């Protein structure tokens, strides 16, 4: 095989793409269609709770068009990081969508589901063996972290996709996966140079994000050959330039020249970008340096507690000029009142009260270099994170009353210091990321079990994996 053509309909399944672009791309006869469906970027709540960042109906729309297109051309469809976080519940949500679409459209195909959620006993075993190592920076990670986690997923490399393709899968729906691996897997399976396969994957995984000016989420197409690849957006109104393609390796990466994958590092130091036509770019010279040891990155989320928030603002210049002191005194008063209400039943460390001051350093916090403020009004958010919603709500209520009437020396008599547009809001459970570590597995696929199904319209039959 001298050329492999790869279609990426969009950067995230559920964010949408233009149907005309997709049809144009299908007419260019791709050998494979790939799509990323998740990220950590929307925050820990999705991995933690199992909800999806994009609505079910929006995912259904994109997935339906991709399934129909892939089956019409009889080429594989590979979807990674199902349901945002790629945990088992989110994978199953995507599985149900695939079944619904197959039933409604009368489609028949071989389906592989690849799990990325990690078994806690497996992680404990690898931790005891010293085969879980921190990246930099990383939170602490021990057996208690594993116990506390709602979900921990491994980010799969290309090998589990290759195993599914070799097992005859037409459609692969995977849990958490390296975005790049979705697209690099089939070229690697067919013997294309890994440097080019991974680099093409890196550009494709964001759909049309690497064009000069993206109008809306849309498709991207690559022609991969033995010594270079070419990228072009199917929409004739979109332009790739050497600079726009080279710039894409900067996006959401800490290091623009070295991208670490499970099996090695994509090295872009010597990549060359040339304009092939006014809107397509030829890339060559990208290298892949195999890793000494295969590693799988973990992502985990645990419940940080339940949260209630109160929003208020201050307009009195006397309060504004002493805002740091005012919030410090307020915190003390709130903690004192919480002690009076709960006594020994709630310790100081059991809950977190955090006051954010917009108009001062609400956006940047500790990174804010501007210390002197000239705002004539400030917005305050009071956030309470506690072990139960009831406690969080109680403390938020205490916070409102204490903040309203906290005195300042400039005025004598009872003041009302904060303007509140509404009462406090209960946010429910909130989550935090708790892992930035890699596992050294015995085998690239051991953390990613696969289920195989034969789908025939409304029928689904499990096959031996």
């Amino acid at each position, binding site marked *: 095989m001298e050329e492999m053509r790869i279609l990426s309909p969009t950067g995230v399944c559920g964010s949408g793409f233009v149907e005309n672009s997709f049809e144009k791309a299908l007419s260019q006869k791709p050998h494979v269609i790939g799509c990323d469906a998740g990220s*950590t*970027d*929307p*925050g*820990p*709540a999705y991995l933690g709770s199992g909800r999806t960042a994009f609505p079910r109906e929006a995912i259904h729309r994109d997935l339906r068009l991709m399934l129909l297109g892939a089956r019409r051309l009889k080429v594989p469809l590979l979807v990674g990081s199902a349901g945002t976080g790629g945990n088992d519940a989110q994978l199953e949500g995507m599985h149900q969508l695939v079944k619904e679409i197959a039933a409604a459209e009368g489609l028949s195909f071989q389906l592989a589901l690849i799990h990325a959620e990690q078994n806690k006993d497996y992680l404990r075993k690898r931790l005891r063996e010293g085969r879980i190592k921190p*990246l930099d*920076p*990383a*939170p602490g990670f021990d057996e208690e972290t594993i116990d506390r986690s709602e979900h921990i997923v491994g980010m799969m490399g290309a090998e589990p996709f290759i195993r599914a393709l070799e097992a005859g899968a037409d459609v692969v729906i995977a849990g958490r996966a390296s975005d790049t691996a979705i697209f690099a897997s089939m070229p690697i399976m067919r013997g294309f140079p890994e440097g080019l396969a991974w680099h093409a994957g890196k550009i494709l995984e964001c759909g049309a994000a690497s064009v000069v000016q993206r109008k809306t989420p849309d498709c991207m197409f690559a022609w991969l050959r033995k010594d270079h690849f070419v990228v072009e957006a199917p929409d004739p109104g979109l332009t790739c330039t*050497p*600079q726009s393609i*080279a*710039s894409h*390796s*900067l*996006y*959401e*990466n*800490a*290091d*623009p*020249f070295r991208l670490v994958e499970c099996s090695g590092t994509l090295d872009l130091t010597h*990549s*060359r*970008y040339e304009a092939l036509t006014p809107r397509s770019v030829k890339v060559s010279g990208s290298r892949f340096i195999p890793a000494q040891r295969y590693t799988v990155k973990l992502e985990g989320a645990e419940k*940080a*507690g339940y*949260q209630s928030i109160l929003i208020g603002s201050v307009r009195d210049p006397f309060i504004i000029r002493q805002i740091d002191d005012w919030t410090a005194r307020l915190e003390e008063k709130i903690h004192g009142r919480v002690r009076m209400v709960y006594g020994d039943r709630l310790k100081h460390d059991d809950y*977190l009260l*955090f006051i*954010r001051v917009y108009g001062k350093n*609400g*956006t*940047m*916090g*500790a*990174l804010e*270099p501007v210390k002197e403020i000239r705002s004539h009004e400030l917005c305050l958010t009071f*956030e309470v*994170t506690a072990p139960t919603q009831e406690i969080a709500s109680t403390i938020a209520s205490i916070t409102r009353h204490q903040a309203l009437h906290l005195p300042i020396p400039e005025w004598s008599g009872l003041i009302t210091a904060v303007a509140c547009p509404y009462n406090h809001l209960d946010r429910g459970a*909130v*989550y*935090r*990321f708790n892992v*930035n570590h890699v596992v050294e597995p015995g085998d690239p696929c051991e953390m990613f079990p696969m289920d195989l199904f034969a789908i025939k319209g409304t029928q689904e039959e499990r096959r031996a994996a």
Partner: protein
Amino acid sequence: MTALAKLARLIRSKNAGPFELTFDIMFEDEATYQRVKASGMVTRERVAACYGLEPSQVKFFLCDNALAIKASIPRPVFQGDPRDSDGHGGQQYAPLMDIEIP
């Protein structure tokens, strides 16, 4: 002297995973990029100073083929933790805009 914000086509910040922030300073043309690069005003040390960090905490890159300068720093609060104010890390670049370039 010209502010960096007037010379760049885009200055942006974003999460690089939940534990790091990354800054991209991107230029329209080679001449402007080379002017900023040669000025020596946009350096690891300067980025560290903008955010009150030690230079050793900053990863710093000159990306010639992208006409861009890039820096990455550890997040002071991990993405989504209760004290995090910027879940996508998208509004952390403003201090870079004022760097004066001769």
